[in-house]
């Protein structure tokens, strides 16, 4: 039995195979019922950090505004402080000068924390992959990424889909085996 979201069924999503790898099965009855309660709360109130470096930030704003309105999915208020944020949507290019700032912002966020790499620049360097001397080729060189959203820039619908995938990922977590978010392992 896979994880769907409200009116969107399990089969409607892509990447179900990779989600199955993360999802823990079994466990005792007590823990799994606490898990489902915690995950329900966490996944439906993801607060993003206002962190936009370039063009994708405009589409992120559009996703939060009137037509697309991603408050419907619980990704409700933009927080200006990383202390209050659950997810950092890396919307835009990250250059070498920005890396220490991004790393610090990520470290300042309280656990559990999630990262969405929005747009080609954050995924891989995008249009600046070749010939640029200052662009980091993908934000996953700096912080661990949960969901990748390709596009230059991705449509707001793509961001909505990415957020829904993140919610499904959260719903598959368990407190008995927390997901590693320690960046030191990565470096």
């Amino acid at each position, binding site marked *: 039995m896979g994880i769907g979201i409200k009116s969107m069924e399990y089969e409607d999503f892509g990447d179900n195979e990779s989600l199955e790898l993360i999802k823990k099965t079994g466990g005792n009855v007590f823990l799994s019922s606490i898990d489902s309660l915690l995950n329900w709360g966490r996944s439906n109130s993801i607060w993003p950090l206002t*962190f936009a470096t*370039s063009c994708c930030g*405009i589409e992120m704003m*559009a996703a939060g505004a009137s*037509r697309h309105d991603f408050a419907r999915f619980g990704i409700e208020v933009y927080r200006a402080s990383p202390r209050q944020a659950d997810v950092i949507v890396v919307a835009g290019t990250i250059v070498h000068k920005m890396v220490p700032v991004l790393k610090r912002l990520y470290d300042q966020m309280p656990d559990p924390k999630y990262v969405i790499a929005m747009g080609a620049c954050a995924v891989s360097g995008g249009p600046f992959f070749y010939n640029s001397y200052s662009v980091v080729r993908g934000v996953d060189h700096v912080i661990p990424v949960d969901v990748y959203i390709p596009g230059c820039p991705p449509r707001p619908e793509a961001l909505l889909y990415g957020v829904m995938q993140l919610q499904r990922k959260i719903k598959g977590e368990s407190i008995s085996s927390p997901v590693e978010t320690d960046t030191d392992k990565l470096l």
Partner: protein
Amino acid sequence: MSEEIIKDVIVRESEDYIINMGPQHPSTHGVLRFEVCLKGETVKYLIPHIGYIHRGIEKMCEADTYQQIIHLTDRMDYLSAHINNEAVCMVVEEAMQVEVPERVKYIRTILDELNRIASHQLWWCAFGMDLGALTAFFYGLRDREHILDIFEESFGSRLLHSFNTPGGLMHDVHPNFQKRTKEFITYFRKKLPEYDQLLTGNIIFQERVKGVGYMSREKAIAYGVTGPSGRGSNLACDIRKIAPYGAYDKVQFDEILMTEGDTFARYQVRMGEMLESMKIIEQLVDNIPEGDFTAKMKPIIKLPAGEYFKRVETARGELAVYVVSDGNKTPYRMKFRSPNFSNLFVMNELAAGGKIADLVAISGSLDLVIPDIDR
């Protein structure tokens, strides 16, 4: 004379109280960092630090062909992407001595103005949001989506549409283009008064922007401030009037000029420009001539050796493109004179002596797009 106007040397003292605004700050509209020195609540001086989104676009241009450069210019000032494209295309067309069809000129001009309206709408909602009026954000982006629908139908993308190519357009516009544009104009004419009712007349808003961040005409000239920010200080700097390109010589429109030079004047200029842009579109949209959507161009573009220069009016000011070619298919040097870079450095003059709470209003009124500063 210029020494009196430009305070270029800032003396730091050891007892200065420094706070950093940014690089991650919602009102810097990106990743700009202000080093602000405070004396109580008053700003003593302010130093902008740039480079947090420096992607080396000018250097990348030297390895790209002219068709590829178009896509990079989109990502500089992403809110006037179409106008940036046009600047590069015009340089190439001038160097190759290609006469673009009339149809292309008309369509480009209409798209420029649609892009300008979309950009000013986004500025309006971001400015409102900076000053605490969150409703403005929803109103502005609601209307902006209607323009994006027109773009999407014709080019398939919402924000960055590399629709211009050297010699013309990528393909012809959608058959619905004229109808949708006219629908939008009638729609937005009704909605624009709402903006005034919501924000312009609001007493809290007026108290925060009136008399704040005064910029004299001399200062605007000395710092090279252009676009709506310069026109708020009575500086007639509209490239569409000074050196008309596209179909701007065929239309009647006014250059909005304000004499006050404060934040509210810059606000009013942009509000007025939205009306003027609609006037331009109305004059052109019914008269788009039939014809080809592109002139005949060779698949490999090699500019003759020499230097080429062209400037356009983006939503934020004067964008100039300077190309040095040595006869190859890639430029030898490509330089962009971006409006935001010049507009940014007047910040110290506007903010020094004022309160720190006004800083957000001033930087919002200059309408900075950070990737255009850093490039």
